[in-house]
């Protein structure tokens, strides 16, 4: 699965609190991604079984909220991808520094 920079950002946000359930708006705020970008990523991650979803009833009479958490497979995949992405970035920075 090829991951975009935004997907890496989402995975990184999940890695901050890997065992906790997160809400869509909460992830949007921590990553700065708009709903139109965030939800396709969440859907794709859930379809690849990297993300588990659940409905939480917070207040009586109010509709439930959708929550997300990385699966075990998702957690190891996220760690691997975020590490690879950060390594690539630091390499690019080093190359940029050497050129200048």
């Amino acid at each position, binding site marked *: 699965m090829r991951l975009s920079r935004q997907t890496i950002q989402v995975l990184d946000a999940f890695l901050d609190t890997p065992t906790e359930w997160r*809400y*869509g*708006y909460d992830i949007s705020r921590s990553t700065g991604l*708009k*709903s139109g*970008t965030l*939800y*396709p990523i969440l859907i794709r991650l859930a379809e690849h079984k990297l993300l588990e*979803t659940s409905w939480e009833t917070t207040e009586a009479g109010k509709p439930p*909220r959708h929550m997300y958490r990385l699966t075990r497979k998702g957690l190891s995949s996220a760690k691997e991808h975020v590490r690879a992405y950060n390594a690539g970035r630091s390499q690019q920075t080093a190359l940029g520094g050497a050129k200048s």
Partner: protein
Amino acid sequence: MSLIRRTASRWLGAMIRYSPVQCQDWGHAMLRESDFVESNWSALRWALGSMAALCRYSISVELNALDRKCRELSVKRIVRGLRPLLSGVAVALIFLSICIAAFSALLHASWFDQAQQRLADRVLIVAVPETAYLAGVMALWRRRKTFAVGILSSGVLLIVHAIVHFASHM
């Protein structure tokens, strides 16, 4: 709830109603989150973004369903479906060939009056096969419909051919 927020929720709600069933859970998830967006304009932007995401997801779900349906319609399946129809056509053609052979034999018979050739032609090559086809179609329509359609289509072709033939040779 302000007018802007209410409008945003209504738009997204309408979109959820018209999206495929598999997408509706995600639509409701996006709609519910819009309640937690602080400002009204941000809530509107959230709803618009959600609509775009839902639209993309719905299209991909519909395309996947279409792709599955196209794969199910393989050549093998079409051929299997056409087999009874082609059998009906084949049976009709065999019967017509027998009628033509009978007509040909009649023409060579010593006792046959050649002045009756035209009448014999119409009876043996049009009337007899058409009657047999009609009887066959009526008998088989309920039990073996596709087979009966094969016979019926042959009958229609034969009658059209006969009409054109007689019209041009009058």
